[in-house]
């Protein structure tokens, strides 16, 4: 198991290095002069000598691998550059906005978990019933529902027509739990609904497979209640593939916040990415993309390791 964990850690480090290369490559080959990208300022009014000096200062006259090495070294030292639109260090902006995006992503994740797991289990237990058909139809629709359209429909229904919840904005759940949750409900549902549909399908098929196993028949024969058989014995054994999906979903949810934050006016990383594109603030965009992609790699690594820890076949695989 130790060797496996080390191998996975090594692979994750390699992927993060490749991710940084991809980000550097995209930013380096942006159309236009890289000075515009790296300095965040235009070149109007600068003489040729001044431009050459800036080029030298930003290492643009050096080979690409030296530029990349210098960029990575700066990243490690905490110098992620300066946002040209706000003039604040990019890392500081990320530190302010990351908790906002994480609250939204976790909110979506919890919605996906509650709706997906519950409907998936009920659907499997009551196979071919009206509830099963209804849940299956909702999952088919849910997978096809664009999250931004879902967000707009939710705003129309719950904010405009019923006036139950706020249209937009963000309040941290740690500062004001009631207002925080009120502001989080609609974006979290919009974000998590599609993932709930995916999780429901996975849970249903996993549970159907498990419910036909002999040990479930034995549990029933021993007189255990149907609730214990379903939620303790069957769900526990169906949970491993579900866990993988849930881990992968957290990464996808963080990506999905890009558009949901724009609709609900939430000041998170996704909105920062979109705003930085309009402001041509490529340092900020580079920072957001790097932190989110690296975060996804780390989440996937933890999911894999958790899977290893929970599945004895993998845990003791090396000794068998």
């Amino acid at each position, binding site marked *: 198991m130790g060797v496996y964990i080390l191998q996975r850690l090594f692979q994750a480090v390699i992927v993060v290095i490749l991710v940084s290369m991809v980000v550097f490559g995209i930013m380096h080959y942006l159309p236009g002069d890289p000075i515009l990208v790296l300095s965040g300022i235009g070149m109007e009014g600068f003489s040729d000598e001044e431009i050459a000096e800036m080029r030298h200062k930003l290492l643009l006259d050096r080979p690409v691998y030296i530029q990349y090495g210098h960029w990575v070294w700066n990243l490690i030292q905490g110098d992620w550059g300066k946002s040209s639109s706000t003039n604040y260090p990019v890392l500081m902006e990320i530190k302010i906005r990351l908790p906002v995006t994480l609250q939204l992503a976790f909110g979506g994740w919890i919605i996906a978990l509650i709706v997906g797991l519950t409907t998936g289990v009920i659907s499997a237990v009551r196979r071919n019933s009206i509830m099963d058909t209804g849940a299956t139809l909702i999952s088919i629709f849910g997978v096809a529902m664009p999250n*931004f359209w879902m967000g707009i429909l939710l705003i129309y229904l719950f904010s405009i027509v019923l006036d139950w919840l706020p249209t937009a904005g963000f309040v941290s759940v740690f500062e004001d739990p009631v207002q925080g949750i009120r502001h989080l409900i609609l974006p979290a549902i919009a974000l998590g609904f599609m993932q709930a549909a995916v999780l429901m399908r996975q849970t249903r098929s996993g549970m159907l497979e498990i419910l036909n196993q002999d040990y479930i028949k034995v549990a029933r024969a021993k007189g255990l209640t149907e609730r214990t058989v379903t939620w303790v014995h069957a769900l526990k054994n169906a949970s491993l593939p579900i866990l993988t999906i849930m881990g992968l979903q957290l990464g996808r949810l963080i990506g999905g916040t890009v558009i949901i934050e724009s609709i609900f006016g939430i000041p998170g990383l996704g909105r920062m990415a979109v705003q930085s594109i309009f402001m041509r603030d490529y340092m900020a965009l580079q920072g957001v993309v790097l932190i989110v992609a690296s975060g*996804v790699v780390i989440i996937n690594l933890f999911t894999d390791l958790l899977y290893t820890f929970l599945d004895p076949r993998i845990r003791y695989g090396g000794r068998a």
Partner: protein
Amino acid sequence: MNSEVETSAMSDEYLAPRGLKHFVGRLLKVRLAALGLFFIVVLIFCSIFAPVLAPRDPAAANGYRALESPSRDFLLGTDYLGRDILSRLIYGSRISLLVAVLSIGITVMIGVPLGLMSGYLGGWIDTVFMRLMDALYAFPPLLLALTLVAALGPSIINVIVAVGIVMIPTFSRLARAQTLSVREQTYVIAARTVGSPVRRILFRHIWPNVMAAIIVQSSLGMAVAILAESSLSYMGVGVRPPTATWGVMLAEGYPHLESNPWLSIIPGSAIFLTVLSLNLVGDALRDVLDPRLRGVT
């Protein structure tokens, strides 16, 4: 040489046991898929004959008739510039289908050969390609597409390229996994033994057996492409106004949500129904082309 002919014939037979008619017949037996297929056919028809079907010029503005509700003159109403929503919806289908088909084309042309080579050749080629795919896979798809469009500039071609690149890891991983399972089949070993070149083995013997999975994934991938294009256009970084796309129509309708909700509901419904239809057809294709997966979901 004879053995090669025989083995490839076997592959073809495996793919389509009783011809196209039988295949379509089985596909149409799945009722929801038949509905989805019908909707897609209607959509293709609308996009091809948009100039004939659209009652008005989709870009023609008329300030006096802005934000009108659906009526006999304007079947689906007008937007904030007085443009006919029905005409814009019909023309918007062209952009959605164009992005879906061309971006999948890019993905298949790059991702599938990478996956085939990776799976068949193995070794360092496999390691390099797959780690690169892992790196691309780490990027949330929409964020990567957003970054690529920002880098390339907002235009329909760049949206197609960006969406195509975003889907490459999924297709190459799928092609690689399928190749790994086919690589050790007797007919592939036979072709290798008689000295067939790698290119011939890949495209003559392995590709026909990988194709079914790629066709299924392409149908599902088109849905993803339409979602990605409309998301990018909605955020204002994809296809730019005044070109009529469903994402742009949604974005333009959002400020008027309180007074004119249909401006958001109509284009959103078009995106939803198209994605739903492609998903239904994709699921049915999987059931028909790969019976092992039937009933799993």
